[in-house]
């Protein structure tokens, strides 16, 4: 409580701290739950709890600036006749036009295309801006089916059947009235200005056996050309991955609880799902048991921030990663240059998460024309491309240090954990020991 002038001896409750007290007061005043954007903000076991074992005597490193460390990845070659071949395994996660401005969607496409990776639509359909600027565009197939149409399906480079997302496994989407402008409403066939609710379950199938038939239909409609992804929020990951593979997925997208959202109940964001770190080994185990690891590719998202996170996710068995929140930050979200405007909203650069209100000073999570115009899609796209290049080079740096000539050659044996929790979740030894909790080895 050093930031508040109180007399010595006054003590803040660990149980009822200021944030807790504020939330009780807010709930009592408004009678409605707190909705916000961003992802889980609580401290969770994460990639920072892992370290790489660089090569020395027993392993042979690669020369950092001389020897090649490849980064390309092929996604969706299990059944699709036109799989995606990306130059970097860092992809852009699904985010909707509606939640984001058209300029932001265009910038994501520009940035991704500049470095040869994919971007993804969201719960609101495909915009021409996004399609035009995206070399590889993944089209999400969501429970709401807003804007879903076969023409766009055929224009897509891959189809992502969304079962859930890490920020809210088991929950549907929402987009509040401030952001349901005429264009957004038109694309979603909704009245302008309503608080839109998206379904949490698909309307025409109810379980994995049905999903297999649904996937067959999507393949038939697109003549078996497009890779079919299945996106799940991390919860019962081991079983969900097995069922997704059985249903016919080409690619699994696994979104951990640190994954972002444009608008979700705070209680949902912070209390449902499991951390990305815990989910990856479950997914890899499921794939390996089905002899499908590397045959059905695994894309991991939820809290990827730097090249170390990329490399660690891949060492644990991911084929690629996806970024959402970090991509928005690269575009300009929470940029200090807008701090005065953030202050007017009662927040500050670095804290802003009220994406649902549509008043984003950076012009990203808004449909306000004046605010949207603050984001130059060309410049923002270039910033994103820069960031993606840095992530790729950082991951290459670590892979070379581990003696790997391709990012996909990273393996769990390259990792140790800093604490028991991370060792147990990631299933790598506690640093300095051979101990993996739960696996009985010392």
């Amino acid at each position, binding site marked *: 409580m050093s930031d508040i002038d109180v007399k010595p001896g006054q003590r803040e409750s660990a149980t009822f701290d200021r944030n807790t007290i504020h939330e009780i007061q807010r709930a009592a005043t*408004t*009678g*409605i739950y707190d909705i916000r954007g961003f992802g889980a903000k609580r401290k969770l076991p994460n990639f920072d709890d892992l370290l790489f074992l660089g090569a020395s005597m027993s392993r042979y490193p690669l020369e950092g600036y001389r020897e090649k460390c490849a980064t390309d990845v092929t996604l969706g070659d299990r059944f699709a006749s036109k799989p995606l071949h990306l130059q970097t395994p860092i992809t852009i996660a699904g985010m909707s036009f509606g939640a984001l401005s058209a300029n932001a969607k265009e910038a994501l496409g520009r940035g991704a295309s500049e470095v040869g990776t994919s971007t993804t639509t969201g719960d609101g359909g495909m915009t021409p801006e996004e399609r035009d600027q995206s070399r590889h565009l993944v089209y999400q197939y969501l429970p*709401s*089916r807003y804007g*879903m*149409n*076969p023409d766009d*399906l055929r224009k897509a480079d891959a189809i992502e059947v969304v079962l859930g997302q890490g920020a809210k496994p088991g929950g549907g989407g929402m987009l*509040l*009235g401030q952001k349901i402008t005429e264009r957004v409403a038109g694309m*979603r*066939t*909704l*009245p302008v200005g*309503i*608080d839109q*609710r998206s*379904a949490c379950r698909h*309307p*025409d*199938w109810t379980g994995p056996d*049905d999903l297999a*038939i*649904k996937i*067959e*239909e999507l393949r*038939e*409609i*697109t*003549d*078996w050309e497009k890779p079919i992804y299945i996106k799940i929020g991390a919860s019962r990951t081991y079983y969900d991955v097995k069922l997704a593979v059985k249903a016919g997925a080409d690619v699994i997208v696994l979104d951990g609880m640190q994954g972002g959202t444009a608008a979700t109940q705070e209680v949902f964001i912070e209390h449902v799902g499991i951390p990305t770190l815990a989910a990856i080994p479950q997914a890899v185990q499921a794939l390996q048991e089905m002899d499908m690891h590397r045959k059905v590719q695994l894309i991991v998202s939820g809290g990827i921030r730097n090249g170390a996170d990329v490399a660690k996710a891949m060492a644990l068995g991911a084929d690629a990663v996806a970024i959402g929140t970090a991509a928005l930050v690269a575009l300009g979200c929470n940029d200090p240059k807008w701090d005065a405007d953030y202050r007017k909203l009662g927040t500050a650069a670095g804290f802003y998460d009220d994406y649902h209100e549509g008043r984003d000073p950076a012009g990203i999570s808004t449909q306000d024309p004046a605010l949207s115009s603050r984001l130059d899609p060309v410049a923002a796209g270039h910033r994103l491309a820069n960031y993606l290049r840095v992530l790729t080079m950082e991951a290459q740096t670590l892979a070379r240090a581990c003696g790997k000539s391709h990012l996909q050659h990273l393996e769990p044996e390259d990792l140790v954990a800093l604490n028991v929790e991370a060792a147990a979740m990631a299933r790598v030894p506690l640093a300095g020991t051979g101990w993996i909790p739960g696996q009985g080895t010392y």
Partner: protein
Amino acid sequence: MKTVDLNTSTVRELNQALHDQAKQCDEREWLVTHPAGTHALACGLDQNISVDIEGHAGYYCAGMNQKATVTVHGNAGQGLAENMMSGVVRVTGDASQSAGATGHGGLLVVEGNASARCGISMKGIDIVVKGSVGHMSAFMGQAGRLVVCGDAGDALGDSLYEVRIYVKGEVASLGADCIEKEMREEHIAELSELLQKAAIDEDPKTFRRYGSARQLYHFKVDNASAY
């Protein structure tokens, strides 16, 4: 007329041949024999052709249909004409769950009964059911018209947006925010036209109209009991 016998051809071969019509329409009339409940029949069509399926169809028959006229001479499985954009889909028998789900346009006619969630999340499609529909029909329906000449199951029109629902028979119960509304002249005219297009002989004046009360359009504490 081109005939495809599914005893000797695969669904893939059928759909590819139908899709190839989108590039150059050489054959406007198609007959599919021995469907035997196969899934994904005649889905993704995008040309003004007619497809007659002589027998029962499985899941997602005529899915995402555009322009084409597809007739199932039998029953149809789950998700009949799901996400249809335009054209006409007709089934002479019964349809399973989620018929016309998320459809954006066109006309779906079910001459028998339709099961649960008929017209779920519909977005502009017109659906005419000669028999009855199951529970949760038109759930979260956004746009379009649902006509039921028989009875409707529980929770009709739950969380409805702007779909107009016409029912001749009994409604077991209405879903959240769905209410009965006045049947005005314009609605009788609209229903009359729909019945005519569907070639179903019913008196539009004997139907009742249901729609959204529009009370759940905004998150309000007063609506807590409805969530």
